[in-house]
Structures are given as structure tokens and as C-alpha cells.
């Protein structure tokens, strides 16, 4: 990999009780590329996202490692400089569109925040830009939506608004933490296609968190498979899915329900795989 936009190096996080939440996590992301973070619930995917964005809850502490964005160590950056990056260069598409919009502010206010605060545009100019954005995420009647409050919009609409907000200032990096899991199955595919299309058009680098290997296959260039806060396997997505090297990846692929027949259900991960993996993690903990 020639150029690195985001470098995560040996990141470790513990809960204040001492339990390890992230174990020595590393990955690199090139400009315009998509990196997938896959893993079961509790694998630490959201925690990883939070460390990168500097919003780790007070009940957790970073015990090692760093995150380098465009050659700058994010953890040593002064707070104002970090705030300047957020929104304009780094943005988030959240998991739950129902709670991520402020119920007391109209869409126009929330969508123009970035233009007004970061780019110092006038309200009129910011509004015009926001309408264009809403058209780009395929919202019909963008002017009506602009004047709406979040509760007047459906979940899918709200997620479109949040995607528009994330792309507003043309950031170089967007982090999407399971952006479709809170939505109806029918809407999920549209939203996924929308994010993928926007990402390609804007050449935005994307960290995409998901449970779903099918989604990873569709949009991720490289992928990390996580379990208990540890990266079990990492590599180009095509290779990783075609020729998995870690038994857990193999088991995950086998367990994944087929996209065309979700009712076939999840196959459980074999107990032997889990036991071996836990032993591997325990050995790593003892060494580290």
C-alpha cells in the first residue's frame, strides 16, 4: 500500500474494570478505499470506531497504540485542531437514524451546521447546498424535508439525511458503524447501494462496520475479522473470502446466511473453533 490516509497501530483498550476490550488492533486505509470491520456482537467494532473518533466512554481507557490520520497522531492533536478535523475531514454515519438526529431541530438546521460553522457560508448558501445534497441521496421533495422535524420522516429517510450530512463537507474519511442494521430489510439494500455509490463518486475512504460478510464482499476492498477485540484475520476482501486463513473466518463464511435466502438462518460457529481461538487470545494476553 503506497499512501496511507488512516493508520491504526496496535490499539489497545481496557474497561475500567481491567477487562481487555481491544487487543493490539492495527489496520491501514488508503485514500478512497473501503475497509470492513466484521465480527460478532461484542467483538469491539464500535469501540474501535469510538477510539478513532475520540469519543471513548469514560468507563474505558486506551492502554496503548495510536491512530495516525494524514501523518498526524490524533491522540496528541490539541482539542481545537481535532475538532477542526471532525466534520470537515472525518465524518460518521451512525447506526440508529432514529436517535441520531436532534428531535428539537429542523432538518435544514441540522444539515447546514457544517456549512455554516466550518465553511462560514450564509444561511441561504448553506441551504442551497443542503438541498443539492438531499437530491444526491435521492430524497424527493427536498425542500419539504428541509422544513421537517426528524419525527416526520421515516427511518430510511432519516438515514439518507444522515448520509447527506456525513458527505456534506466532502470529508476524506467516513466511518459507518452498522449503518443499515436498524432499518427494514428492503431499505437496507438501497441504503447500502447509496453509501457505496456516494463513496465511489466522492472518492471517500470508508471504514465500514458490519456483521454481514455478504455486505463486505460487495463493498470492502480490505477486511479485518475481529473476535473479542482482536483482529483474527486481515487482508484483501477477495482473498479473505475465497481462501480464508483463519478457521474463524472459514466458520463465519459458513455461518453467514445466504443473501437470497436469509430464512436459512445462521449456522453456529463450531465450539472447537471458539475454544482454539480463545486459547490463542489468552496466549496473546499472557505475552503482551
Amino acid at each position: 500500500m503506497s499512501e496511507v490516509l488512516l493508520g491504526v497501530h496496535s490499539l489497545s483498550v481496557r474497561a475500567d474494570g481491567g477487562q481487555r476490550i481491544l487487543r493490539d488492533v492495527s489496520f491501514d486505509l488508503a485514500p478512497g478505499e473501503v475497509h470492513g470491520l466484521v465480527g460478532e456482537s461484542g467483538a469491539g467494532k464500535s469501540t474501535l470506531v469510538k477510539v478513532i473518533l475520540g469519543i471513548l466512554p469514560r468507563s474505558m481507557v486506551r492502554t496503548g497504540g495510536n491512530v495516525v490520520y494524514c501523518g498526524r497522531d490524533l491522540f496528541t492533536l490539541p482539542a481545537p485542531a481535532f475538532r477542526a478535523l471532525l466534520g470537515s475531514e472525518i465524518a460518521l454515519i451512525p447506526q440508529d437514524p432514529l436517535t441520531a438526529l436532534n428531535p428539537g431541530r429542523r432538518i435544514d438546521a441540522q444539515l447546514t451546521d457544517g456549512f455554516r460553522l466550518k465553511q462560514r457560508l450564509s444561511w441561504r448558501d448553506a441551504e442551497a447546498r443542503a438541498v443539492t445534497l438531499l437530491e444526491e441521496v435521492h430524497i424527493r421533495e427536498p425542500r419539504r424535508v428541509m422544513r421537517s422535524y426528524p419525527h416526520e420522516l421515516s427511518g430510511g429517510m432519516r438515514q439518507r439525511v444522515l448520509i447527506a450530512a456525513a458527505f456534506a463537507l466532502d470529508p476524506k474519511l467516513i466511518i459507518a458503524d452498522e449503518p443499515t442494521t436498524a432499518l427494514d430489510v428492503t431499505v437496507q439494500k438501497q441504503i447500502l447501494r447509496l453509501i457505496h455509490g456516494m463513496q465511489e463518486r466522492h472518492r471517500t475512504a470508508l471504514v465500514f462496520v458490519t456483521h454481514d460478510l455478504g455486505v463486505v464482499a460487495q463493498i470492502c476492498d480490505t477486511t479485518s475479522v475481529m473476535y473479542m477485540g482482536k483482529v483474527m484475520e486481515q487482508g484483501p476482501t477477495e482473498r479473505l473470502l475465497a481462501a480464508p486463513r483463519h478457521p474463524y473466518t472459514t466458520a463465519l463464511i459458513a455461518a453467514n446466511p445466504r443473501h437470497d435466502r436469509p430464512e436459512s438462518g445462521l449456522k453456529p460457529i463450531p465450539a472447537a473453533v471458539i475454544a482454539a481461538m480463545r486459547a490463542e487470545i489468552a496466549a496473546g494476553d499472557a505475552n503482551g
Partner: protein
Amino acid sequence: MAVITLFGVAVVVFCLLRVVPGDPVAMMVGPAASAADIAALRAHYGLDGPLPLQFLTWLKAALVGDFGTSITRHQSVLSILGAYLPATIELAFSALLVAILLGGATAVVATLLRQHRTSAAIDALNGVFLALPDFIWALILVLAFGVAVPLLPLTGRIDPSIDVPFATNFLLMESIITGRFAVAGNIAAHMAMPTLALALPLAAVIARVLRQALNEAMVQDYVLLARIKGMSELRLILHEALRNAVGPTLALTGVQATFLIGGTVVVERIFAYPGIGNLAIEAVINRDFPLIQGLVLMFGLIFILINIAVDLTVVALNPRLRHV
């Protein structure tokens, strides 16, 4: 609904006044009056005949806006209320404003410092303020700024030596609007202590409830997302959290605003401030039945108006309720 409430208040007060000891007419005429004189006076003030009949007579007149004549002041109750109410309105509004600003600022600062040790100190101090009622504050203020460091006038509404004509009884408002700022300053100085005494307990309640509501709002997803848009902490509080915290705070503290009106009775008395609270105590001491009756209805009406105003504001502040 409001009409039924007011009617109930009128009936209860009417009956209570007639059963408590003390005869206004006897107090008025003194021991030398003849029985016939007393009877004539009773008839004049609507105090003769059986109780239900007395009430009906009063009600009939009240419905057309005639609340009778004050026994001690010999003026119509309505004109007395009209003369005293503006002073209380100015006092109550000032107190409300001060309480909102003080309580709001305290809550915002405490939220800003919530991860800091000083935040606990603010909470502790606020607890003290919560525990002290308005009349205690009145006494503390009198001792502090009236006696120890005599900065502020102790009693009254305006310096008696100031001799300017007023078109209304809204002295403070009128002075400000007409640009007589020296007079306005003098009135404000007179109002400072009673205003603070009324405002501080309410400010403490507002501070605590708003702080709680802000704390809840600050951990919501939308605040987290706004933080990731790069907003400063103060902006997060003022622009993201506050608008969602004001509604619940108002719903919980609206009742306290009526306590503030009740508080004017004692506080106005302490500072000899010429409002309807002070008037009410005087009326009770004199057993001025028509005046008391009118005053109680007036207080009832104010309480009802406050409750309606609070309800309307809560709805206006919540976009989810606004359109239905």
C-alpha cells in the same frame, strides 16, 4: 374548566370568610353605634340575610364586573385591584426573569463542568438554595444589603421624593419606555431585594431540574453525532441539548412559578412593597370581606393563567406536539 375552578374558589372563600371570627362592620363602627346603624351598614355591604342569598347577590354583581366596595377604603374593589396589581406584576415578572436567567446559567455552567470537581460544589450550593424559602431570603437580604452594607432601599417601590407624573401604575415599564432611566434605576433599586428573595428559590429549582434534563440530553446519540461534527462543548449544550431540555424543565417547574406569586404576599409585606400581596394582608387584618373576596379571585385567576401559559409553552416547544 377554568370557570369552574374560579367558581369553586369563590364559594370556598365566601364560606370561610363568614365562619372565621371577626365582624368587619363591628370593627368599623366602634362600640358606640346603634343596632340600627349596624344593620344599615350590613345591608350596604351585602352582609345581611342568609349566606346563600349573600353569595348570590355577590355573584350577580361580580358577573357584570362589580366586585363590591371595600369596607375600609370605601372604593370599588376593582379600582383598588387595578391600582395595586401592576406593582405585583412588575415584581413577579422581574423575579421570574431573574430566576430563569440565574437558574439557566447555573445549569449550563454545571453541565459544562460536569466532569470537574467544581460541579459537585455547585450542586451542594444549589441544595442550600433549594432549602431556603423566599421569606428567609428576604430577611437575609435585609440584613446584608439593608443593614450591614446599606446599599439598597429597604422599603417601598419608589423614592417618595421623586415627583414625576405617571400615566399608568406600571412604574418601572413606563419609566423605561419613556426613557426616564434615573427614575427606572430608583425603582429597580427598590425592587432588587424583593425580586431576589422571590427569584432565588425558583432559580434553585430551575437549576436543578434543568441540570438533570441537560445531563440526560448530553448523552443522547444526536449530541454525540454533533460532537463528531466538531461542535464545541458550549455549543453542544446551548444548541443541541438545551432545546430538548427546556420543555421537560418547564413542565416540572411551571407549578413553582405559582409558588412565586404566592410568595409575593409575605415578601411584599416584608419590604412594604405596594402590591396585591401586601394589600391582601391588610385586607385580612381589617376583615375587609369584599376586598378579600376580590383578591382571592384575582390570585385564582393568575394561577389559572400561569398554568395555561405553561401548558401552551410546553406544547410550543415540542415539535412533536406542535402540529397535532
